[in-house]
């Protein structure tokens, strides 16, 4: 029987996610894909596999999963309480789950989106070149209790590896560049915008999140008269009530609200992962600085495999000590 993970109890907002479907804006379909692209890359590095494979994205809450066949897993993104057969599991790490064992993933400890990866990635029907769900477009769906997610061919590899966590789960500073409508805001308002402390509104999803300012809202000179044009993830729309909305991976493809600027791609995971109430600030950077920052982030992603270390645990806690010696022991399942 092929290797799989069976969902024994589904959290309310779990879906398969991968890098999404770029190139379909002209058809009205935004890229979609994992809300935290860095977490996808971390899972791929930990498991020694390609970054285009699908993983389970869990918003706020995980679930219970039973292994069909032995599986290597990696847990990345927002840290969540996790255990295997009752024994706690480290986040940001790889583990072996034996056939029949039950993995439990509880609520998020910080951040919003946690990820569960398997060696070989999750298999599933491809729609328009990707396996991930695009919930707002009606592609795929949230995972449900009883779903059986088969795993692809696992190249095999060591488990008990971890990556030092990169803190992006508590808000902070988001860097942005100016855009087509930035000049429709007064210089005073742009200055005030940068000085404003924003709190992430409790409402929010994969399409976008609202940033509630600690002072007055913002108004553009254009008001609401802008003809609809292409909008992209990272755009900061100022809606009718003056409250900024940051567009995320599943945003609409066109919109007519004035945009004060666009958050850099490498800071978008920090925005998506900010929990309700988290404080954020926006800092405008010029294009040269933005490019330098983005290059550095791309290099950091490429360097992930070199930053992997062994998970250090107290051997007395390691009931499953032997499993950590396992190298290339997981069969391809073919």
């Amino acid at each position, binding site marked *: 029987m092929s290797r799989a993970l069976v969902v024994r109890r589904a959290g309310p907002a779990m879906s398969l996610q991968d890098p999404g479907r770029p190139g379909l*804006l002209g058809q009205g379909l935004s890229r979609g894909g994992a809300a935290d692209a860095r977490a996808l890359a971390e899972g791929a590095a930990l498991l020694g596999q390609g970054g285009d494979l699908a993983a389970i994205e869990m918003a706020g809450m995980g679930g219970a999963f039973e292994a069909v066949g032995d599986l290597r897993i990696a847990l990345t993104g927002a840290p969540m309480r996790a255990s295997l057969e009752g024994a706690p599991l480290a986040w940001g790490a790889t583990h072996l789950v034996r056939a029949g064992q039950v993995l439990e993933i509880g609520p998020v400890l910080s951040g919003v989106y946690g990820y569960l990866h398997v060696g070989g990635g999750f298999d599933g029907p491809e729609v328009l070149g990707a396996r991930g769900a695009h919930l707002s477009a009606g592609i795929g769906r949230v995972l449900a209790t009883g779903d059986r997610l088969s795993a692809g061919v696992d190249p095999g590899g060591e488990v008990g590896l971890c990556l030092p966590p990169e803190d992006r789960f508590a808000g902070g500073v988001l860097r942005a*560049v100016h855009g087509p409508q930035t000049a429709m805001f007064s210089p005073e308002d742009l200055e005030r915008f940068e000085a404003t402390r924003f709190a992430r509104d409790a409402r929010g999803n994969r399409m976008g999140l609202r940033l509630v300012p600690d002072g007055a809202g913002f108004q553009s000179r254009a008001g609401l008269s802008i*003809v609809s*044009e*292409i909008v992209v993830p990272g755009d900061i729309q100022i809606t009718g009530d003056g409250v900024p909305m940051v567009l995320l991976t599943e945003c609409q493809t*066109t919109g007519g609200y004035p945009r004060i600027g666009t958050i850099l*791609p490498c800071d978008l995971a920090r925005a998506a992962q900010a929990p309700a109430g988290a404080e954020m600030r926006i800092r405008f950077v010029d294009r040269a600085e933005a490019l330098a920052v*983005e*290059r550095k982030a791309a290099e950091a992603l490429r360097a992930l495999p070199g930053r992997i270390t062994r998970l250090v645990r107290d051997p007395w806690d390691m009931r499953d000590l032997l499993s950590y010696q396992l190298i290339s022991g997981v069969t391809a399942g073919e």
Partner: protein
Amino acid sequence: MGQASRHSGAGIPRIDWLGLDGLLVRFGDALSEPANRAALALRHAILREDWPGVEEVTGALVSTYLRFDALHVDADALRARLEDLVASRDWSGEPLPGGRRIWRVPAVFGGDLSPQLAEAAALAGVSPEQAVSEIAGKRLRVQTIGFAPGQPYLGELPAHWDIPRQTELTPRAEVGALVVAIRQLTLFSTAAPTGWRQVARTALRPFQPDRAEPFVLRPGDEVVFEPVDREVFERLQGDPQGGAVAEVLP
């Protein structure tokens, strides 16, 4: 020149950065047929020229957008090349792209599938009967696909249809809902909230993810809505095309 006067129309077409990896060319500050034609034509010209490092070329009602690989492309050189191309001709005088089709789409006007027909007609200053005859039977162009997958924006209706969006959102428009505002119609491809008024309902699903060709309509296509009664609509609901038939335009 002040920002306000530029916004009022001078400096068109206008080129701006959109994010770190995008460029936006706008042919107008409001919807118009020539601006829509220009946006379509520029998009096709850039696609034909197949510039290295350009990853996506698309557009909206009166604008063309291109996305490039910011880490590997000289963005300033790309922008200069785009400026040259934009300045090379009057894009609003270009022919529409080839391979366009005309779609005849059955639609129910009146009754509960058309809940705001009377309200929309009143705002446009016509009777409901007049509204139907102005919307149905008219050849409308797919000006852009956007907002949701496969969702067409259709126009342009006569000037008296420059009716505002409603202030409150309708919580849910169904797939196939035909809604109107600001001289345009859009046909919902996913169920979503809307601030536009629903004047008809079709059985056409503009986005069919399970099909080899999931997107039914293309920018530049024409659409004619043909009034049918409720019974016909119910029968057509089993057909994802909703009884729509297409013919290639000469």
